[in-house]
C-alpha cells in the first residue's frame, strides 16, 4: 500500500430536512427503512456546490491552499451536466490552478470509494483533493425518493501523516436492475424485487470484505455504503461485522441515501469521532464493491448547521417538481463568453488593487474607483467573510426573470451589498443571499459560498453568494 494519507477531511450537507413522518403523511406510507430524516438541497445547491463547500473545508482542515493541489478528483452520480468536465469549474471555484490529473468518477455509487482509492494512488507530486458529492432522487412516491438525501465530503490526500490506506479488496457479481438511471432521466429507478435487491447488495459487499487480509472484527467503525438503513446492517451481519460498528459512523438515518458520498461520509464521521481503524465499503449497483481498511487520524471540518425542517409542499417546490422553466424574454442577458471572462470574480471574488493609490476595485476593470487613474490592478482575492451594508428581500415581481425558477423553488430572494476588507482598504460587492440561509442584516458578518446562480442557454452558472457565518 501507499504511504500517502488523508491529512484533512471536509463535509457539506444541506440545511433542509424532511422527516419520514411528513412523507408518510403525504403518501400514506414511507418506503425507506431505517431513515428518520433526509437532507434536501436548497434551490441553488447541487452536487457541484456541495462539493465546493466540502472541498473548501477539507483544504482548510488540512491547511492546504487550493493553489497547491496537484490533482483533483470528483465523484458523483448526479453531475449537474451529463457531459462536461466539471472538475474544471470545481477547480476554478476552489482556486485549484494547474492540476496534473482531473478524473471524474460517475455512473455508480461506487464512484466515491473509487475516487478516494485513486487519490491514494496518484503520484506524490503534491496534495490530491478528492471531492465526493451526491444528491440522488427518484419518483416522488418511490422508495428511492423517500430515502434520497444529499451530502458531500472531500479528502486531502498528502504525502504522509494522517489516515493511511492499510489495504483494499474489490468484488463484483452481475446483478442488473437493482438501481439504475436511464440516459435521459434524472430519477433513479429500481425493479424493486426485495430478495434480489438484498442479494445484489450483500453478496459483493461481503465478498469484498472477505477479500481483505485484515480481520473485520478488529476495526473500530464500519463505514458501509447505505442506500437505506437496512442493507448495510444485513451485509455487516453476513460479513461478521458487528452492527454496532456500522452504527458508530452511520449517516443514513439523518441524511438519507447520499449516493456516492455515503461510505465516504461515514469515513468522515468515524474519523471525526476519533475511530482510528476503519472498515469502509463503497458499493455500486450492477453490482460491485470496494472494501478499504483505513488507519490513523486527521482534522475533520464538519459544519454545525441548524437544520431547516420542511413541509411537504416546500419539499416538492425545492425538488423542482412544482416549478417551470425560465420565462422567455431577452435583453440584459450576460452571454456565456462574457460570463467566462468574469469567472475569477464569480467563483473566487478576485478584486483588483489600484497600482496608483491602492484602492480596491470590484470588478477589477476600468478606471480606479478612487483616483480615477486608468492604470493596472493587482489581483487580490477577497476574504471569505465580509460585512453586510444593505439588504432587501425581493419578491418575484422585483427580480430579473433569470431568477424565476429559483424563486419558484425557494421563494423571495435576499439581496445584499457586502463590504470586504483587505488590510486598510474596503470594497463593496452586490451578492445574493444563499437559498435556505437565515436572513442577514446590515452590520452582520457573512461568509461567501458557491451556489448555482441561474441557468441560461442551458448552461448552469455558479457564483459566490452569502450566508451567515457558520460556527
Amino acid at each position: 500500500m501507499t504511504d500517502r494519507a488523508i491529512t484533512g477531511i471536509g463535509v457539506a450537507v444541506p440545511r433542509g430536512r424532511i422527516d419520514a413522518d411528513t412523507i408518510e403523511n403525504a403518501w400514506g406510507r414511507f418506503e425507506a427503512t431505517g431513515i428518520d430524516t433526509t437532507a434536501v438541497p436548497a434551490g441553488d445547491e447541487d452536487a457541484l456546490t456541495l462539493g465546493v463547500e466540502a472541498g473548501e473545508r477539507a483544504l482548510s482542515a488540512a491547511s492546504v491552499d487550493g493553489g497547491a493541489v496537484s490533482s483533483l478528483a470528483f465523484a458523483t452520480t448526479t453531475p449537474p451536466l451529463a457531459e462536461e468536465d466539471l472538475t474544471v469549474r470545481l477547480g476554478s471555484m476552489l482556486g485549484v490552478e494547474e492540476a496534473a490529473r482531473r478524473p471524474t468518477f460517475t455512473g455508480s455509487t461506487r464512484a466515491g470509494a473509487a475516487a478516494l482509492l485513486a487519490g491514494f494512488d496518484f503520484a506524490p507530486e503534491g496534495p490530491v483533493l478528492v471531492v465526493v458529492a451526491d444528491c440522488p432522487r427518484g419518483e416522488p412516491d418511490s422508495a428511492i425518493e423517500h430515502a434520497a438525501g444529499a451530502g458531500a465530503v472531500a479528502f486531502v490526500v498528502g504525502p504522509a501523516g494522517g489516515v493511511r490506506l492499510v489495504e483494499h479488496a474489490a468484488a463484483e457479481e452481475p446483478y442488473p436492475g437493482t438501481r439504475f438511471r436511464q440516459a435521459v432521466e434524472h430519477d433513479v429507478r429500481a425493479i424493486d424485487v426485495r430478495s434480489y435487491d438484498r442479494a445484489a447488495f450483500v453478496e459483493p459487499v461481503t465478498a469484498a470484505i472477505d477479500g481483505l487480509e485484515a480481520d473485520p472484527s478488529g476495526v473500530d467503525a464500519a463505514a458501509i455504503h447505505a442506500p437505506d438503513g437496512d442493507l448495510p446492517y444485513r451485509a455487516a451481519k453476513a460479513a461478521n461485522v458487528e452492527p454496532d460498528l456500522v452504527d458508530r459512523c452511520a449517516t443514513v438515518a439523518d441524511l438519507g441515501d447520499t449516493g456516492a458520498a455515503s461510505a465516504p461520509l461515514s469515513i468522515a464521521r468515524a474519523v471525526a469521532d476519533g475511530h482510528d481503524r476503519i472498515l469502509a465499503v463503497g458499493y455500486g449497483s450492477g453490482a460491485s464493491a470496494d472494501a478499504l481498511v483505513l488507519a490513523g487520524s486527521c482534522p475533520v471540518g464538519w459544519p454545525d448547521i441548524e437544520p431547516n425542517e420542511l413541509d411537504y409542499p416546500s419539499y416538492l417546490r425545492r425538488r423542482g417538481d412544482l416549478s417551470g422553466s425560465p420565462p422567455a424574454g431577452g435583453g440584459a442577458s450576460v452571454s456565456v463568453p462574457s460570463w467566462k471572462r468574469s469567472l475569477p470574480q464569480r467563483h473566487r471574488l478576485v478584486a483588483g488593487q489600484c497600482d496608483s493609490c491602492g484602492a480596491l476595485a470590484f470588478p477589477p476593470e476600468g478606471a480606479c474607483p478612487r483616483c480615477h487613474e486608468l492604470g493596472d490592478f493587482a489581483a487580490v482575492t477577497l476574504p471569505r467573510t465580509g460585512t453586510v451594508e444593505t439588504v432587501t428581500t425581493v419578491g418575484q415581481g422585483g427580480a430579473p426573470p433569470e431568477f424565476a425558477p429559483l424563486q419558484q423553488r425557494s421563494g423571495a430572494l435576499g439581496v445584499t451589498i457586502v463590504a470586504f476588507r483587505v488590510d486598510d482598504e474596503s470594497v463593496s460587492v452586490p451578492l445574493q443571499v444563499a437559498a435556505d440561509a437565515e436572513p442577514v442584516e446590515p452590520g452582520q458578518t457573512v461568509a461567501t459560498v458557491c451556489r448555482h446562480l441561474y441557468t441560461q442557454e442551458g448552461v448552469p452558472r455558479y457564483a459566490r453568494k452569502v450566508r451567515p457565518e457558520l460556527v
Partner: protein
Amino acid sequence: MRDAYLLGAGQSDFGAFPERSYRTLFRDAFEATLSAVPDEFEADRIDEAVVGTLGVGGRQIGLSGPAVTEHVGLHGVPCTRVENACAAGGYAVRQAVQAVRSGMADVVLAGGFESMTDVSSDAVRYWLGVSGDTEYERLAGTTFAGVYAQMTDAHMRTYGTTPEHLAHVSVKNHANGAHNPHAHLGFECSLDDALDAPTVADPLTVYHCCPVSDGAACAFVVSETVAREFTDTPIRVAGVGASSDRVGLAQRETYTAVPASRRAAETAYDDAGLRAADLDFAEVHDCFAIAELLAYADLGFCAPEEAGELVADGETALDGSLPVNTSGGLKSKGHPIGATGVGQVAEAFAQLTGTGGERQVDDATVGLTHNVGGSGGAAVVHVFEREGAA
C-alpha cells in the same frame, strides 16, 4: 453663448396602449406640442431633432429616432437618438439646448418615447434590467426595485425615514395625478393603500413603485429671436446641469444620495444664477418613493434627514411651499422611459404658461425638472424661468 428658450411642449397620454405603435404615440406628442404654440409656428422651421428612448422590447434598436421624425413629417431633418436609460428624455432636452446655445440650430425638437406594455411582464423586466449594472448588480438578483429598496433600507437606517414617509410620497403624487388627464394612474390613493400593498422588494410596496407605461413627449427648444417672434413672456432655459456616476450602486460613494443628481443640480443652479429657494415648483424623478425623498436633499430642498417630514408635513403638496411633481410624477402620471424627461418639461411648460388646470401652481415663474437614469448612473437637471413676469 446665447440663451435657449422653451417655445412649447406637450405629451401623449401615458398609459397602457399595447395596440399603439411608438410612432403613433410620438405623433400624439408632436401634435400636442404644436397645439401648445401659436398657430403661426410652422413645423418646417425645425432644424434638428434629438429623441430619447431605451428601446424596451428590442423594437427598432437602430434608427428609431428618424423613424419617429419621418413619421410625423419632419422629412430630412437630422435626428439623433439619445440613450441614457430613464434619463434619455432629459438628456435629449439638454442636447437640444446645447444645439441652440451653440448657434448650430434655431429650432430643435427634443422628444422621447417608449412602448413597454405590448410585451410580457417578464420580458419588460429583462429590458428594464439593461439600464443597470447587468453583470453584477442584476445577477445578485435585483431589478431597479431591488436596488432602490437597498437605498431605502440604507436611508431608513441612516436618517430614520419610515414607511409612512414613503407612503406620503405616493399619496401626494396620486392626488396630483388625479388632476392630470394624461396620467397613467390618475386616481387617488390613501396612506393605508400604500402601506398595505404587496411588497415588491422590501420595504417597497407596489404603491412605492411607478408603473410600466407607454407614451411620448416633445418640446421645442428655440433661440431667443425665434421665441420672441411668438411671445412677450418667453420661457428661458435658465440653467442646465448633468452628471454621470458608476452604474452599479455598490460602486458609488454613498447609498443614501444620488451624487450625480447633486452635481447636476449644482451646475444647473450655477448656470441659472438661482437656487432651490427661488423655485416655485419642481418635477423630480420619483420612479420609487425613496427616489423623491433622495431628490429633496440632492436638489437642495432640505437636509437628507428632513426629507421624510418635508412630504409628511405637506410642504411639497400642490398647496405647499414647494409643490413637487404636480403632474403626478412618474408614480401616477407614468414612466415611459424615454418620454419621462421630456414629459417633465411638458409639465414645466404648462405650469409656467398658466395652463396647468386644476393642478396649476399660483404665479409659477421658476421651475425645475430632474431626470435620473438607472439608479443614479446619469442625472440631468433643467431650471426654467418665465421672462417678462411682473
